[in-house]
């Protein structure tokens, strides 16, 4: 019975809930953006426009699933799947609460880094296989952006690893019993947040799909359900990075009074809202500005953070 619970019930329910959350966060984003931009947003379908997502789904599913004749067909079909698989796999190691976690192993953080580095392929292959100039440009930008920001995403995480002495997310959550790591790792948190936004290429770092310059970037040629996969994949990415920030810097499921899962959802949800606010508030930088910021400002800062953390741990820790 316990095996059934662990092997079947938890993963399936997590998967279904995640997909639903990702779908409804499109609604959340549109409503919140509307609030911050002094508009109404989608409010016609269902109460408060909540059923807008269902309407969108019906629209997406009934559209023609078109593969351009000039595309590299196999890669064109595989590309959106890679993104979905890599993002969903990431959730396997997140401890949602003390007893809701799909897989617990020692090198969880390395696993996350491996997944995030593999998800670059999705965008690159989408751009390459579309055989279109705009898609290719988008893919190039993504490759450069994700490669550079991945470097210090990993390095920013190492601050937490130094303090905890473990790559396991459960150990990291347990180590935050007395105080959250945001207090000891404020710089690391900010750097990880920036790198996280760049990794899931959300606004303001949405250069791969900057619609004013290169149409829709890497998914210009995609339609119907394959476009839907990219779309939902992006929101899954937002939820994933929010969950990761919660786990690494904000104590995970720990919190007083309320049950752990509620705490986890509250913290993650507020970061999702924060990501949407970022999109509403900050303009998109130019491509060369983005790269320069990454390599000349953020990378040295990350190394500094790493050295300071190591020094602090050596002199005051243990």
């Amino acid at each position: 019975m316990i095996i059934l619970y662990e092997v079947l019930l938890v993963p399936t329910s997590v998967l279904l809930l995640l997909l639903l959350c990702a779908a409804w966060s499109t609604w959340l984003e549109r409503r919140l953006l509307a609030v911050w931009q002094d508009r109404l947003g989608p409010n016609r379908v269902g109460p408060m426009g909540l059923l807008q997502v269902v309407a969108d789904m019906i629209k997406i599913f009934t559209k023609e699933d078109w593969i351009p004749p000039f595309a590299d067909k196999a890669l064109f079909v595989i590309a959106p799947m890679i993104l979905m698989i890599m993002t969903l796999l990431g959730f396997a190691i997140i401890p949602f609460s003390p007893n809701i976690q799909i897989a617990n192993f020692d090198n969880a953080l390395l696993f996350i880094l491996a997944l995030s580095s593999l998800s670059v392929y999705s965008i690159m292959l989408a751009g390459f296989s579309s055989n279109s100039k705009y898609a290719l440009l988008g893919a190039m930008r993504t490759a450069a952006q994700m490669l550079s920001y991945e470097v210090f995403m990993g390095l920013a995480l190492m601050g937490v690893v130094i303090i905890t002495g473990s790559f396991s997310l459960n150990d990291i959550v347990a180590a935050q019993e007395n105080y959250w790591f945001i207090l000891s790792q404020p710089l690391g948190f900010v750097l990880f947040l920036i790198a996280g936004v760049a990794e899931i290429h959300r606004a303001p770092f949405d250069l791969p799909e900057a619609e004013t310059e290169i149409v829709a970037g890497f998914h210009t040629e995609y339609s119907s359900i394959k476009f839907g996969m990219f779309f939902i994949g992006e929101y899954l990415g937002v939820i994933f990075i929010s969950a990761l920030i919660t786990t690494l810097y904000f104590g995970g499921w720990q919190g007083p009074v309320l049950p752990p899962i509620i705490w986890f959802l509250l913290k993650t949800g507020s970061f999702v809202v924060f990501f949407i606010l970022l999109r509403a508030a900050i303009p998109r930088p130019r491509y060369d500005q983005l790269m320069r910021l990454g390599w000349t400002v953020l990378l040295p800062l990350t190394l500094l953070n790493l050295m300071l953390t190591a020094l602090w741990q050596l002199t005051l820790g243990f």
Partner: protein
Amino acid sequence: MIDIIFCISAAVAIISALLTVSAHNVVHALLYLVTMMLAIALIFFMLGSPFAAALQIIVYAGAVMVLFVFVTMMLHQGERSLAAERQLFNPQVAKGPLILSALLVIELILLSLGSVGLHQEILTGSLPVDQTVKQLAIQLFGSYRVLVVLAAIMLLAALVSAIHITKQGNKPDTKAKPIHKSGSTEFTPVEIEPNQAQTNKKTRGEHG
């Protein structure tokens, strides 16, 4: 169970390595190479070194190969490069490599037939399992620290020389300077257009 997974990932590794060499489309070949690296990472994982497995994915599959794909994507010419690839790979050229690799395969078979002990050891996982990252770090920065520093210096030298090569001042054609000077945030199309047209003409003239 472990045996089955090992056999599957080894088979995947070998097949994708073969396809890497034989695929005509460069990007497809690179993707088969990525698959091979993932299979090798899985084998590392089963041999009891999850850290090496993760590094294999992060560094090789996730960074080095991405750069390869990046460059080939830029230089890819579609049908033309495909045709060129098809011409390149003919039986005449393949003769030498085929003989050499056949020799290697025969050696491998002889070795694995001769030393069953090694084979067994790998399959049953009696190699030192559970090598934690801490142990690895202690070894790397303890007994092997000179090598680590040497590797770091080598990489630094490569980085510095790469920066030196791409530096603007070294270009013989000073007129073809990039439009965006560092620091200038304004975009002035009027200044750019004649410059670009000039350089375009120049390069076209050189190649044609």
